[in-house]
């Protein structure tokens, strides 16, 4: 679309929405949020950018095919799930670091599982939407 307001707004919205997505992802352990909603918001940020500037420019920002995010996210979630087996716990037990990380708080294997879900959701949504927009 060739509207200058939407184009200008989208270039400011993209980093803001990505930041909000990361905020939602990190907050998800105790409050509403988490990997799925965060991934959807990050995908919506790229979709709005692609509507305003054309898909080729958005592909230039991402640099690689978004489908590659799916196996990476699945592998990260799998590693977070089977990591407690090596320390003597049951499958998917939460492992926590001893000291809290500044700003984020306590970090455990649940966060890495959530990051895996985040990457899978971004990859799936962007693959679907880019494929649909190419055919129209």
């Amino acid at each position, binding site marked *: *679309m060739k509207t200058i307001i*939407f184009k200008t707004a989208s270039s400011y919205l993209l980093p803001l*929405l990505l930041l909000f997505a990361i905020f*939602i992802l990190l907050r998800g352990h105790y*409050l*509403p*949020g988490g990997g799925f*909603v965060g991934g959807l*918001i990050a995908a*919506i940020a790229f*979709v*709005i950018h692609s*509507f305003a500037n054309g898909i080729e420019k958005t592909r230039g920002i991402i640099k690689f095919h978004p489908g590659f995010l799916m196996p990476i996210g699945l592998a990260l979630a799998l590693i977070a799930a089977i990591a407690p087996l090596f320390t003597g716990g049951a499958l998917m037990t939460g492992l926590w670091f001893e000291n809290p990380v500044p700003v984020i708080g306590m970090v455990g294997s649940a966060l890495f599982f959530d990051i895996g879900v985040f990457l899978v959701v971004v990859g799936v949504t962007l693959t679907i939407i880019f494929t649909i927009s190419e055919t*129209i």
Partner: protein
Amino acid sequence: MSLYEYLYYIILPLLAISILIIFVRFLKGPTLSDRVVSLDLIITTGIGIIAIYSIHTNQPTFLDIAMILALIAFLGTVAFSYYLEKREKND
């Protein structure tokens, strides 16, 4: 009349009536763009209802849900207008 009573007995019924009126426009709407605009307006009124509910129950996390809903409504309207524009070009 306190703020809570004002929100509960005046603002909330107003929003409910306006949703009904917008829904009539959504059903009648002569053209497709009328329906798209009325759908956007229904979601925006729903965001207002969520905001009042968040004040009433004293839960600030509902506001984040309202924000995500506004984002999705905006994306939906932009996508509808994008494809309406493309369809008019093709005809």
